């Protein structure tokens, strides 16, 4: 069967990934995803940096979700140290995380429009994303890489003078986003319906998270299942669709923007006064896990400490790492021209994902049998 390889360097892809497609005519029969082109050794680097410095390192894992990785990391460290975060800091964390979700989903919609040739949607969604980035510059000092998270709280306060400006932007978005969603449904609905279908069974067996899973009818959301920051006190819904196709994913994301605006309005109204950062002395030896709902799905950071001010082990599992294999179930059966939007539909972030590259220097391939695997596992335990 003829094979078509897209990437790793391709003008339509922002990040390096190789998609190998086996085609019959124009129909995709099988797909194979290769990652590992943008591995930067962040986990190893973080073992030589203090907790304060690692926060800035993990912020640079991804340019789009540059809040969720530091948030996860500081939550993991707070888990080890048993640090109680002040209420105001929790609310500020929620506000930054939700603003990030809005800008990430709008960015995704713009890229989807760009891939499909719907440039009006691309221009409109990026036009609506701009005021959100202006808020980030006002509040945090930068459009990206906000540098807001710190172990024990947040680094910067949101002064009350900025709150009306944020609410004004939210009003603007509340008016524009439903219109944009309607426009997407009417102009791209036919194009996106019934392509890249992921069934509920596959979504479970591939362990997908985030909008990819929610579009198949799975009501999973870290904000509800493992509440963190100020989410337990705020009211919101999990946006669900049952179809599992690309249109359902788009609708889930648009619905999440509306939910985020709803969360932000509550958080800004109930912003409690007080300290923004808890003081702590030492981080004791131990293990901790930080969870957060990134715009793409569930993000997990595992940190092990040994009593020093640096992590002994830092494991990062970004949402794309679990969503990406689901493409192998989504791609077969579709037309070749739909391959791009299906790859883009999970909102992949390869910079987040590439953690470990296995390089076999001799180029040998080996199949490990079950007995061998069991033996290895039993020997390791001894």
């Amino acid at each position, binding site marked *: 069967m003829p094979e078509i390889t897209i990437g790793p360097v391709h003008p339509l892809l922002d990040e390096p990934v190789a998609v190998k497609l086996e085609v019959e005519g124009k129909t995709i029969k099988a797909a194979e995803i290769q990652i590992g082109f943008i591995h930067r050794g962040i986990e190893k680097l973080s073992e030589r940096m203090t907790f304060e410095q690692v926060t800035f390192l993990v912020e640079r894992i991804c340019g789009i979700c540059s809040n969720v990785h530091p948030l996860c990391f500081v939550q993991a460290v707070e888990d080890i140290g048993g640090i109680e975060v002040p209420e105001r800091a929790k609310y500020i964390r929620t506000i930054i995380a939700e603003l990030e979700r809005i800008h990430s989903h709008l960015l995704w919609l713009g890229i989807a429009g760009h891939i499909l040739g719907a440039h009006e949607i691309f221009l409109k969604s990026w036009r609506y994303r701009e005021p959100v980035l202006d808020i980030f510059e006002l509040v945090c000092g*930068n459009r990206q890489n906000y540098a807001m998270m710190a172990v024990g709280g947040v680094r910067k306060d949101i002064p009350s003078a900025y709150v009306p400006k944020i609410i004004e932007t939210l009003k603007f978005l509340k008016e524009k986003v439903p219109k944009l969603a309607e426009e997407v449904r009417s102009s791209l609905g036919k194009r996106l319906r019934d392509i890249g279908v992921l069934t509920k069974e596959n979504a479970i067996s591939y362990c997908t998270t985030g909008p990819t899973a929610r579009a198949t009818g799975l009501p999973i959301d870290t904000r509800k299942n493992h509440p963190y920051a100020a989410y337990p006190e705020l009211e919101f819904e999990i946006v669900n669709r049952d179809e599992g196709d690309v249109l359902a994913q788009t609708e889930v994301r648009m619905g999440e923007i509306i939910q985020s605006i709803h969360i932000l309005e509550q958080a800004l109204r109930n912003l409690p006064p007080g300290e923004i950062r808890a003081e702590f002395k030492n981080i004791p030896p131990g293990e901790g896990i930080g969870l957060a709902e990134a715009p793409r799905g569930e993000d997990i950071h595992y940190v092990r400490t040994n009593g020093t001010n640096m992590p002994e082990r830092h494991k990062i599992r970004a949402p794309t790492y679990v969503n990406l294999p689901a493409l192998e179930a989504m791609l077969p059966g579709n037309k070749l021209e739909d391959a791009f939007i299906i790859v883009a539909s999970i909102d992949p972030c390869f910079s987040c994902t590439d953690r470990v590259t296995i390089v076999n220097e001799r180029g040998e391939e080996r199949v490990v049998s079950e007995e061998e695997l069991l033996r290895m596992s039993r020997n390791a335990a001894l």
Partner: protein
Amino acid sequence: MPLFKLRKEEGWEPPLGGETYRGRPQFQDACIGCGACAEVCPPKAIQVKDQGDERVIELDFGKCIRCGQCASACPVEGIKVTPTDGVFVRGEERKIVVKRKLVRCENCGQPITTIDHFRWMVERLGTLSFSNPTLIRFATATDSAGPFRILCPRCRRLEYLSDHGWRAKY
């Protein structure tokens, strides 16, 4: 008059962000040369070098990620985040340097810290600074050395151990 000002000679100026924009950090005159900014800098863009009787603190904009940790760690307002930015830096623009006078141990010659840092410590400690023979030198207004010697913590401890502090003090 060129339409686009792309070079410095044509009148190009680094773009200014909003008031709250986190741009390039700049050293201020208030800098005491303690090196706290270099300790916390995540990409190690700030380096402290002790050369002769000078401490040179170097900030490399090519490495700087504009996180503002240096400004928040500074005990005085010695380094500040400014709204100025320019991503592309080259040549002389790439590094800014601040120099402060260094104090060395009179016994072993190891650098201790800067004069300004000592004076800042004395200011903070008040009368408590008379408990440390090295600090007494900076606590008194006179320039004369007096009977006290400037010693690094290691030498001070060694001398205390060897003769009950007689030589360390005088």
